């Protein structure tokens, strides 16, 4: 009985700040939850639909997510079809008019940055490609800064009473963020030109920013599982154009990258990919600190 009372009290205490929060935000991915927390602080109650250990393409519209989408004032997603396997159901089945596409309650990060890897030809024979371009845009911190500008604006539109506080938090974040970018760019200057292999096309923005050269992917086509024949072919490619490391995200299985790395005698590096993907990636700053640490440790 005592434990029950304690449980109820704890639940009430936990629920209390949630009730005070002005905005209920559901982020599609952990990076956008982290960014919303930076910009809104305790002005918003933020949760995320996916974790760093889940492939953002391939989760299901679980009942719990529908229940979250029902109560959300704002959805913050990557867009560019990254969530096309489950997000449309949240839009349609949650009975929530605020978060529909075209409404202020639906925020797509991809709309505010320049997407790379736009396919010239749309054909499923090319695998699971996205017509609008590569949606894994947050691993270039300059993109995060652009998204932050737009998101701060959106937050203050939705919660005009607190506009000044969002603006102040935004200015503070951008100041810390640009300082961090300068620090990271200096740290990573030695990585320029380093050749890497990636599991999926989800490291391209990171490569773009740091000047890494992605010489191949473990997936034969985007979204398709690595096959033995493709990996063998990749090993041949590496003989001609050696790479320094094989990168994978925390949510990707290690088998294929470790196979290739051991055959090519190079390190296989697991990157957090997003907030929560490693012990160090506690927030957006930690995400890039940890990512660079891991890259620098593996680099020659």
């Amino acid at each position: 009985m005592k434990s029950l009372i304690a449980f109820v009290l704890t639940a009430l205490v936990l629920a209390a700040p949630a009730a005070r929060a002005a905005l209920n935000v559901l982020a599609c991915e952990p990076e956008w939850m982290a960014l919303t927390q930076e910009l809104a602080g305790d002005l918003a109650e933020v949760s995320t639909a996916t974790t760093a250990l889940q492939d953002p393409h391939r989760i299901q519209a679980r009942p719990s997510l529908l229940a979250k989408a029902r109560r959300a004032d704002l959805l913050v997603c990557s867009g560019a079809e990254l969530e096309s396997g489950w997000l449309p159901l949240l839009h349609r089945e949650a009975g929530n008019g605020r978060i529909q596409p075209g409404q202020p309650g639906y925020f797509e990060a991809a709309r505010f940055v320049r997407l790379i890897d736009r396919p010239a030809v749309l054909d499923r024979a090319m695998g699971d490609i996205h017509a609008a371009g590569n949606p894994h845009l947050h691993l270039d911190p300059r993109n995060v800064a652009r998204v932050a500008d737009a998101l701060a604006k959106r937050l203050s539109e939705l919660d005009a009473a607190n506009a000044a506080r969002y603006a102040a938090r935004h200015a503070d974040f951008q100041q810390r963020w640009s300082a961090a970018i300068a620090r990271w760019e200096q740290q990573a200057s030695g990585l320029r030109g380093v050749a890497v292999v990636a599991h999926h096309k989800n490291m391209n923005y990171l490569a773009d920013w740091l000047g890494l050269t992605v010489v191949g992917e473990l997936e034969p086509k985007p979204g398709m599982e690595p096959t033995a024949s493709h990996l063998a072919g990749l090993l041949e490619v590496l003989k001609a154009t050696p790479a320094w490391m094989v990168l994978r995200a925390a949510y990707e299985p290690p088998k294929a990258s470790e196979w290739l790395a051991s055959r090519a005698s190079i390190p296989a590096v697991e990157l957090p990919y997003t907030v929560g993907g490693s012990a160090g990636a506690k927030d957006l700053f930690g995400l890039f600190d940890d990512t660079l640490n891991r890259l620098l440790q593996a680099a020659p």
Partner: protein
Amino acid sequence: MKKTILAVAIAAALPWSAAARAVTDIDALRAEFDQKFKALQGDYEARVKALESRVQTAEIKADNAQQDAAANASPPPVSAGAFNPEISLILQGAYLDRAGGERPITGFFPAGGHAHAERGFTLDHTELVMSANIDPYSRGLVTLAVADEEVEVEEAWFQTLRLGHGLTVKGGRFFSGIGYQNEKHPHAWDFADNNLMYSVLFGESLKQDGLQVRWLAPTELFLELGAEVAKGQFFPGSDGGADKNGADAWAGFAHVGGDVGVSHAWRAGVSYLRTSPREREAFLDDLNDFEALSLFSGTSKAWLADFVWKWSPDGNPRQRNFIFTAEYFDRDEDGDLLCEDATAAGGACTGLTDRYASDQSGGYAQAVYQFMPRWRIGTRYDRLSAGSVDFGANGAFLGSTDYDPSRWSLMTDYSPSEYSRFRLQFARDKSVQGDPDNQVILQYIMSIGPHGAHKF
């Protein structure tokens, strides 16, 4: 000293030969100079041109970058073509090895629907799906099932998007929200054929021509309530009374669900369906083994319970995942049954109309496990209970049975990508009394186009 003497000697020797030669030399020099000058000029021109073009490309690049940025920063370019609906096609077909002929499930009214009486190579119906937002307030979808000489409208509905307060209204022809499997199209089933429960309840699945209202509660726990009112012309209703006002099918459902930790998700529900069939036709085997035509008018009430549990490590189903599904139903039918007079043709019935009452139940449980990417295995057990069937006075001509139909199925499927799947299924089918059958089905399902997201 020697050098000066030599120079003087040469200078003295020059005049007569040099005078003539100087003219030609100057000409040659001039020609050479001209040639070199022109070459230089050409070279410079080429360089300048190259520079110009480089500047131009740089300008174009910068322009492109600006345009790209602009295109990205603002909504994508608008064209009339962009308003076209999303169109997708589902191709499905199979090779079946099974006993021939119709195999009506013993003890149950045949529910019609897509009875797969075919054997050998068969082409299932091909599904054509089109959907789009109609305006900011609603969305529309059409699913056409195309087969030889027939096009069936499987679904054609609009759905509201912005009612808010957790409310969604759907109108038109739609798959009823009752049960769990009912809303799934055959291409999304985990087995190559329908389970026995849905076969006897609805044939394939319950379609409704009418209205549906759903309400999702604003709670942490997923709680959804729904109600439907519809014409009720599909089994267990009938189109016998189509020419009338009002509605013959009423349905209600409640679903709850949530997560347990990050790896588990579940959903459970209860549903109720009430239909009022008028002169619902069915052929029943009479005591003379003659196919007697019967007409049922009355009410059909069904309760359904469903439960789904899904597991995947860390909630990431891409490598491995497990799905357990179980559903159960109980159906009561009460009314009048006419068994047409067939004595002339050797039948037993004499055209008598009398009370008919039945209470039947059944269900299925299935488990599907994806043990590695692309590969899944699954097993399903179906069981129906004949329950009590009272033909009244017609009981003298129509035999009732206490046989409980059942079936075991095993399947394995391989999916080269999200858009294609091959499946091999074995079944030990004991749904027909005295005629057990071993069935093998090899099936393919392919999806073309922007295929919509599947429900949980």
